[in-house]
């Protein structure tokens, strides 16, 4: 879909105002209530949630509508099977089935990792600012958190994070980093991982929520390494490029031993049947993902410039 500059600027104008208004002042529901009071064409894009304003792709919608609201009442049945989604991840990402865990959003993967790999004596290392899920949960369970400020170029300071990793249970690396939007390329991540492997016993959790939006050719996902290395876990989400934030579905990739440790605590009975069907179809709809990537790149370029 191509973005009309005029409509986009108009929306961003309103959206920015909303962001400024709502950033610190109140819960999301306030922003939502305010937005719903506007005529539909004037409703803002909620920039502060990094949602995909276009919604799920047509194939995902088809899969959900035909699979979920028709036939033998799938919404009334416990959705016990993850097969459709696991198969789609295997087919599109090249990750073996045994190395995949599904979560109630990638949030649940982040929480599970924080729960099983940290403790009051094994701290969490995270960037500042970075996505706050792990650090927020660490606080709840009494895990100390070492916040490592981003560099002057707003990038995660991987060296300082490796320095802070001695005695840590988990290092949270958001790549690209939310909210600074910056990226570390494959070489930088490789050097960081090597250092952590020799100097610490911590598990590295790499959150690739924005993976589909990365255009830097030097970027590499770490999922291949996660399959082999017991101390690397990669998290992905369907909330962004796949336009399914509402469905609460994400996944993790790790070594089978690492997953076994996680699965003692992780429960996946919180997954809804529509999310499984929709996410599987969306992953296989590579055309839609490519189109969404192009759309986002265009808008981003326009706005950054």
């Amino acid at each position, binding site marked *: 879909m191509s973005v009309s500059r005029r409509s986009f600027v108009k929306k961003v104008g309103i959206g920015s105002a909303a962001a400024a208004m709502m950033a610190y002042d109140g*819960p*999301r*529901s306030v*922003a*939502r209530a305010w937005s*719903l009071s506007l005529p539909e064409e004037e409703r803002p894009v*909620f920039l502060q*949630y990094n*949602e*995909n*304003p*276009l*919604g*799920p792709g047509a194939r995902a*919608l088809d899969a*959900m*509508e035909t699979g*979920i*609201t028709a*036939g*033998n*009442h*799938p*919404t*009334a*049945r*416990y*959705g*016990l*099977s993850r097969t459709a989604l696991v198969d789609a991840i295997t087919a599109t990402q090249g990750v073996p089935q045994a190395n995949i865990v599904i979560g*109630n*959003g990638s*949030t*649940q993967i982040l*929480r599970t990792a924080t729960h099983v790999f940290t403790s009051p004596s094994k701290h969490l290392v995270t960037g500042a600012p970075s996505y706050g*899920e792990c650090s*927020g949960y660490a606080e*709840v369970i009494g895990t100390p958190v070492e916040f490592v400020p981003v560099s002057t170029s707003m990038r995660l300071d991987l060296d300082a994070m490796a320095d802070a990793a001695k005695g840590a249970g988990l290092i949270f690396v958001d790549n690209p980093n939310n909210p600074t939007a910056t990226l570390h390329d494959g070489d930088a991540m490789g050097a960081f991982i090597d250092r952590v492997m020799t100097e610490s016993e911590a598990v590295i959790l790499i959150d690739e929520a924005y993976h589909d939006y990365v255009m830097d050719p030097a970027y590499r996902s770490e999922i291949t390494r996660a399959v082999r290395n017991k101390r690397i876990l990669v998290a992905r989400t369907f*909330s962004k490029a796949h*336009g*399914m*934030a*509402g*469905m*609460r579905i994400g996944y993790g990739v790790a070594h089978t031993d690492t997953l076994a440790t996680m699965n*003692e*605590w992780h*429960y996946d*009975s*919180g*997954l*809804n*049947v*529509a*999310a499984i069907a*929709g996410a599987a179809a969306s992953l296989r709809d590579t055309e839609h993902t490519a189109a969404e990537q192009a759309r986002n790149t265009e808008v981003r370029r326009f706005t950054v410039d």
Partner: protein
Amino acid sequence: MSLSRRALFGAHPPNRSERPGALIAARGREALVDEPWPNIDEAAAVAPPASGEIRLMFNENPLGPGERALDAVREAFHDASRYPDNTSPSMGDLQAALAAANDARPEHVLLGAGSEELLKDAVQAFTSKSKHLVTATPTYVASARVAEYLGTEVKAIPVDSDGKLNLGAMAEASRGAGLVFVCNPNNPTATVHQAEAIAEFVERVQHVSPETVIHFDEAYHEYVTEPGYRSALSLALWTPNVFVSRTFSKVYGLAGLRIGYAVGHKDTIAQLGRYGLPINTNNVGVAAAYATFHDSVRTRREKQRNAEARRFTIDFFRKAGHEVFESNTNFIFVNIGRPAAGCAPLAKSTASVSVATSRRWKEPTRGSRSEP
């Protein structure tokens, strides 16, 4: 739903001579989970429901959700790129509606990804290595499983000879406990306690152990027909350390969309909420629940349908000479008086008419009745 007796049981009439008895019953979502109560064999891997199949072991609603819910679901798919606290209806809208329906305020209500998430959160929030969990056996097992993982001691009190929770013994065991889990009606025995017994239980627990939190799981609340029953919800609103969990998975037919909720004193709910995922429910489930829970006509009809099927089935088993605990749920617990091996033909027979039955239990150790 019409059941053909012959199809269901004709091929394999129960044989009472084969003791020791095994019990066959329907259960909820925990059917795939081990439980401390000794079970004889694991459920086989469960296939997705075939056309029209009734999965008794999951206590699902075979009729599905109502049209209002399905309409809401179809509409919500298009809003699925928004976080569920930013959709219409939002998580906040559902929370507020559930609060209003129960004369409560939103801070008394917490949503869960099914009630199962709330069960987990409660054990995490209120127990510790020094504050044990009191539960029953057999009962819904999620709480005990979480406690075991966390290294929390579990005191599981056997049900009495009528399959009812032994509330007296559970209250005694609550001294120094972090949490008491009371499944009312109880899964899998299907039995219910009346309002007075529940109120008395709360009083006793608060007397012997004022700090202990009491969790009433009312997953089957809407199916109860016992006139003396009342939800513990209003009690929970005004009593510190008491909360109730409910689910949209049963009477509302939304098991696949994972919506549950907890209601209680605001301090208890706030403490519980710290352990839940911040955005734990999906917008489709939120929309369906929001559309359906006010539909009292449909709920009443579903309750009526269930009561009729339940009466029919219980009467059948009793006429055939089997002990059945009185059920206030959408499942029954019946002693078919067979060893484990004898259950297989029954399961096979019911499967042939698209009815999947549950796992089996050994006959419970008979305790004394908890109440005269």
